[in-house]
Every structure is written in C-alpha cells, then in structure tokens.
C-alpha cells in the first residue's frame, strides 16, 4: 500500500471556486482551535479521505470538510472562526 501524502490548499482551488464562486486559495482563514490565521493555500489537505478534509497546518485541527453527493457539495466550515475575502 502506498501512503498518501497530505497536499495543501492549492489543490482545492477548483473546488473552492465551485463552492464560494471566488478564488479562495489566497483567502486568510482563522482556526477555531488555535487562532492561527493563514492563507487557505497553506492548510493541510487530504483529497482521498471520505470527502475532502482540510486541517490547520499549525495545530492539525479540522478546518473544513467537503463531501460531494448526488451532484451536491456539502460543506462543513465549523473549524473556521473566520474566512476573509482574499487580498485584492
């Protein structure tokens, strides 16, 4: 079995565009658990978890989960205290 390396938020730029209708990889997100604010591009991303799992690079807490089902994308953002628009 091959272990699957975690990627980063750059890998979900397309998915985020679908959900937010905007470029979000440069958007600063704040972790509920540790308070760190970092661009989504720097988050830890697992594409092949059940759904797409996004974790805080500082503390490892869950930030976002995306699950596609029957043409819909279910989005769980409970791990984010804030998600701002990307800098212009």
């Amino acid at each position: 079995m091959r272990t699957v390396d975690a990627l980063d938020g750059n890998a979900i730029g397309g998915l985020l565009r679908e959900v937010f209708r905007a470029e979000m990889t440069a958007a600063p997100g704040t972790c509920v658990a540790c308070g760190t604010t970092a661009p989504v591009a720097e988050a830890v991303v697992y594409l092949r978890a059940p759904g797409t799992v996004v974790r805080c690079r500082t503390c490892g807490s869950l930030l976002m989960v995306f699950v596609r089902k029957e043409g819909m994308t279910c989005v769980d953002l409970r791990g984010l205290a804030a998600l701002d628009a990307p800098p212009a």
Partner: protein
Amino acid sequence: MARAAVLGRLTWQVATLTATRDETATAKTLVLDVPGWPGHLAGQHVDVRLTAPDGYTAERSYSIASPPDGDRLELTVQRIADGEVSPYLTETLEAGDQLELRGPIGGWFVWDPDSAAPVLLVAGGSGVVPLMSMIRARARAGSGNKVPFRLIYSVRTPADALYADELTKRARDDSLGLSYVYTRMAPPGGPAPGRISATVIASAGWPARSPEPPAVFVCGPTGFVEAAARLLIDAGHAPARIKTERFGPTGT
C-alpha cells in the same frame, strides 16, 4: 489583468490536443487549444476531467507550464505507472483528441510579473512545472526589465530533469540562475548525489536579508517542500515570503 484571470465563473471547457512533446522518458507536455481561454497567471493550474463511456469521471489538477499565450495552453504531465489519469494523458491521447478542463485556478501560488523583488524558485521533480511558467513569463519581459531569477532544481538523475535544454539556454541567454541537486545519480565530475541542504540554499539562493527581500516559490512532493521550506526559514527567509505548493500521488 490579474483579476480578470482569477475571477469569473469556473466552467468546464473543451480543449483539443494539438501536439505533444516528450520531456523525459516518463513526462510529456500536452499542447492544447482552448477556445476562449481567459488567460492565466504564471503558477496557476487547471483541473482536467476524464469521463468514461459509463459516466464514471476522474478529475486531476495539472500545473500550467506555458506563459499566457492566447488560446494556447501547455500542461506537462508526469506519468505515474499505476495512475488512473496520467497514463491516458501521456500514452493514449493523440493530436486532435479532446478533453475537458476548467481554470485557471489559484491566486496564491502565482508570480506577479509587475513585482520588482528578486525571485528564488525551488523545485522538486515535476514541481518545476508551475515554476517554468514563471520563468517563461519573465523571459517575455523586456531585456532591461527582468527581475533576477534563480532556480534550484532537485531531480533524481540528470535524465529526470524536465526542460533541461531550455533551462540551460535560459541560464545562458536570459540570466536565469540555475543549480541542480541530484539525489540519486549525479553527472560525472560534479558533486556527489545528495539532498537539498543549507549549503545549497546558501550558495544557489538569494541572501534572505537584502534591501529587496526575495519572493520564494517552492513546489514539489510534500516531503521535499517541507524540507526545503525549513531550510529556507533557517536561512533567514521570512515565512510570509515563502509560498509553497505540494503535490503527491493524488496528483496522478
């Protein structure tokens, strides 16, 4: 221009393969014609979608290797032996065939050609692809206008280096700083194989503390990116100046 390339609704578009170029024994560049392509920034990627006759679809992200150039788009695809998508793209797809893609995607890992800061590019394996788009975009700037660029490129052996001839040419004609790190087998007469190190960063990179701190882009497999980013921070580069992009087996 930057905004135009990153905003707007993301829709699947049909691209036609017009030509291919072998880059190494296992990597191929796909030259695509994408009618109505909105343009892109160096460093962005596209999502490619393949659909089987039974409706099963597979999606993968591929970095754009070419600079902005009308409806023409080049992707360099590394074939993964047991991959689901890359063997099809590199072995089955022929000129005239079509595929679906959407993009450009990403606004973080991009180089702004109007920026005056010197640039340090650090690539591991096929992580050089989005960095090549930056190198090519810079090559288009007027000769008096080129910001200093340096590339540190880590590959297993010389035969694994993508764009080797073009990089040599750009180093010669285009003042691109170019340093290779060979991890498995090095050319005879040079340093022994090794991994990227503090010594390499110090000799082939830019000093972190300079009047105009360099912008740093690191792209490669996850382990390589973590190691390189740590070395860069140890060398004094501000974390906020280091942009990273990781890819892995999921990018097959």
